[in-house]
């Protein structure tokens, strides 16, 4: 008798909606999560660079504080937006995800500890950054290191979940959950690919800050544009090289999917590469002309397309890794028609309501600010 396969059987409860619904939700919510994460992590790095590498100390500190104040909002956004893909990945790939998590249980739980400490660090820097900029810088550095560590754990878990052929060796050598996936040649290139992307989007975040300040404080905004735009360009250049390294590190069968074997994958890959290069060129042009519209609208539009392509490729790559063992499209389906529409309704209403909350806040915060400013000037006058 053969040993039964180590890969756990999928859950006996059928999918409560067709596979493609979950695939779309997984990729969509993952994109939202990764964008928030990139802004948070990249914004944090840009804050530190501004603080410690800036020639003009005053401006550097100002950028630092402006960015530091955003971090306690961007981190919960990252977590909250991360919960949805975490849910959907368990729906489609639970038997792979739970197993890889068990193999690296302690490092995986460490994510929570890092998250808590990093989070409080961001709050500290945001509340006290004005009074104690020196210490706030060190605290943000600490938090950023922890966030890098969290990303590393996530890369370990995802790569491990996609390579069931090595599970047995790892588990039976250490069932106490202290494994990582350091021997996977694609681990570090993959990890770096995500981290460098964060730096690029951190640059874009600064460009958006330039846009927000363009009319109010143009001199400051121009400096933000140059700083953020350069950050974006350098990181994206590095990313193009890094992306090629990542591609090379993949097993050849999977690599070739993006190099002609699969037309859709190849097309997405081409759009991704060409889009990235175009965004660098366009940003260089925007910086030269000091064209905020080009930097804050056109470049992000291209990058949005690139991110959608990359996230879709990531999903295709996972399915290709798992193809010898499992196809999520084969899972039994029994759509819960009494609940699924409720979700769609709540989701649509929630999304609209969320935008109302944002718009209302911006409008009233601005009105109220003007009101107070005019009262103050009346009082002064």
């Amino acid at each position, binding site marked *: 008798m053969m040993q039964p396969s180590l890969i756990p059987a999928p859950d006996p409860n059928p999918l409560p909606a067709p596979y493609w619904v979950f695939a779309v939700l997984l990729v969509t919510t993952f994109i939202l999560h990764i964008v928030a994460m990139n802004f948070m992590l990249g914004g944090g790095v840009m804050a530190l660079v501004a603080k410690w590498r800036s020639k003009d100390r005053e401006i550097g500190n100002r950028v630092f504080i402006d960015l530091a104040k955003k971090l306690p909002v961007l981190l919960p956004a990252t977590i909250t937006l991360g919960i949805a893909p975490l849910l959907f990945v368990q729906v489609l790939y*639970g038997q792979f995800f739970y197993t890889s998590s068990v193999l690296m249980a302690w490092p995986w739980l460490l994510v929570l500890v890092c998250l808590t400490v990093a989070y409080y660090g961001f709050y500290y820097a945001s509340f006290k950054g004005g009074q104690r900029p020196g210490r706030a810088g060190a605290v943000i550095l600490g938090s950023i290191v922890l966030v890098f560590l969290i990303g590393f754990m996530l890369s370990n878990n995802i790569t491990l979940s996609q390579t069931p052929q090595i599970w047995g060796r790892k588990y039976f050598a250490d*069932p106490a*959950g202290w494994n990582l996936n350091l021997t996977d040649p694609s681990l570090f290139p993959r990890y770096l690919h995500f981290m460098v992307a964060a730096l690029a989007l951190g640059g874009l975040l600064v460009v958006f800050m330039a846009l927000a300040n363009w009319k109010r404080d143009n001199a400051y905004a121009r400096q933000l544009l140059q700083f953020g735009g350069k950050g974006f360009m350098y990181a994206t250049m590095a990313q193009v090289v890094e992306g090629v390294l990542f591609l090379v590190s993949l097993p050849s069968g999977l690599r070739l999917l993006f190099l002609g074997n699969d037309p859709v994958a190849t097309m997405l890959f081409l759009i991704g590469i060409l889009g990235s290069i175009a965004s660098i060129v366009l940003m260089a042009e925007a910086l030269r002309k000091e064209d905020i519209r080009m930097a804050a609208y056109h470049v992000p539009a291209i990058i949005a397309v690139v991110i959608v392509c990359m996230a879709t490729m990531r999903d295709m790559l996972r399915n290709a890794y798992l193809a010898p063992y499992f196809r999520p499209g084969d899972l039994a389906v029994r759509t819960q028609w009494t609940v699924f529409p409720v979700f769609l309704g709540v989701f649509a209403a929630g999304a609209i*309501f969320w935008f109302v909350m944002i718009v209302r806040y911006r409008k009233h915060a601005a009105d109220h600010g003007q009101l107070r400013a005019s009262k103050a000037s009346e009082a002064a006058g």
Partner: protein
Amino acid sequence: MRSARASPRSAITASRGRGIRMNYPVWDVAFGAGLLIAIVAIVHVFISHFAVGGGLFLVVTEIKARRSQDAALLDWLKQHTRFFVLVTVVLGVVTGVGIWFTIGLIAPTATSDLIHIYVWGWAIEWVFFFIEITAALFYMYGWDKLEARVHQWYGWVYFGAAYMSLVVINGIITFMLTSGSWVKNHRFWMGFFNPTYFPSLLLRSAIAFALAGLYALITASVQKDAALKARIVRWSALWIVPSMAVMPLFGWWYIRRVPAAVWASARGPMPTGTEFAGLTVVFLAVTFALALLSLARPGRIPLAFSVVVLLAALGAMGSFEFVRESIRDPYVIENYLYANSIYVNPAPGDGGFDMSAVQNAGILQTARWIDVRTLNQDNQAVAGREIFRVDCESCHTANAYRGLKHYIELRQWDENDIQAMLGGLDLMHNGVMPPFAGTDAERGALAAYLYSIAPIAPGASLPADGKTVFERKCSMCHEDKPSDPLFENLPKDPQTMAAALQSLSSLFPLMPDLQLNDRERTMLAQWVNTQRGAQTSAALEGGN
């Protein structure tokens, strides 16, 4: 003869018997996996209920402060909002994700089931959660930036969304305890609006509003202005006292809706359930008394006092969660999945991990993550350890949290006793454990392993009286009370009784095949009759 089934992998790790939990690999947590879940979960629920009740507290207190033009109260509330966000949005959110992480590591099958059955529930809850977190941040950052009306609007949005997330999660949590008709029809809403849904919702709402007041004592106690402090403490009491006053009512309703068989394990001889039910009451009483005491000198309560009150409340909340978890045993999902990840009944796609399939095929042949597949005279304890990890480790450890070494040593069981007792696991403690999942030969191997961790020391004392015999051999299933079948059904004549005890399974077919020697049987028979007398007189005095 060497088995043809030996695999290359077992050659790699042949020296160590490493195990599995059925479909998924088991994660070895030396101090007890169950304890880890309990810690993360209790911290989370203690914060998440505050996140719900505290939301209403913020906005209502703001309205009150503005109406009475109480600037000091408003200033405090601003600080309290920051405290609220730092506790709920950071620690509350991270521990919430933490529960997911932890149960996914320790009970992946159950987690996967809950995700697959309720993914749309979780997804709906996520929408509310997203709005909740956004509103919390706007409420905090909006204190100085928004006019009162708009600021309060965010407060109301926050509370509405937070309460809705309780409304959704409550359906899934209560489903685990009382799965209702879902097991038969697999309909989402049937499981969601299960028998304990509404009492649990009301009970948890009361807990949430009480916690809103209790947490407020913390930030109140650090205020320097005694008059302000007194106002906050009195205002907090208005949240704590009525909420706690209605808790017994909702608690009673909740208990009523839990099927008697489920609740029995918390009332019966099972120590954990009974002890924690008692502890819950004690902690609630202490919290209530301290909250009232704070009203005696409301302007002078120190931080230490507030911390003690909150710790008492944490004790109550933690004990309540322990009761809920322990009465849920032997299931993770009532009538659907046992605590050790084995399905109660066969179902399509269950991968052969249902109880009857495992009992027929044997666990060493069914489990995936295992490298001991054979059972012979030489590997009894090694194979037994594998079986222990698969069948028992979701709740027990060998020698730490719920350690079996301690249980067995206390009762001085020999290997035969253990093997017999394992045959009646599902009867122990009013049915708090699943039946043994494996073949008879595997039961023998498990007994060999358990005996190897808790061997009877040479020269250990034999039971000196019938009471000790009862405690060691009978008290797992029987209680010292007149209504227990042991006292009701055994013959009155000591000699007839002793003879009847020779074959327990002929007394009652489900009894384990435990062998008592002549001396033990005689002592037990004498003691049973003595107790019958004692029980009668105790009953006459109104005791027991």
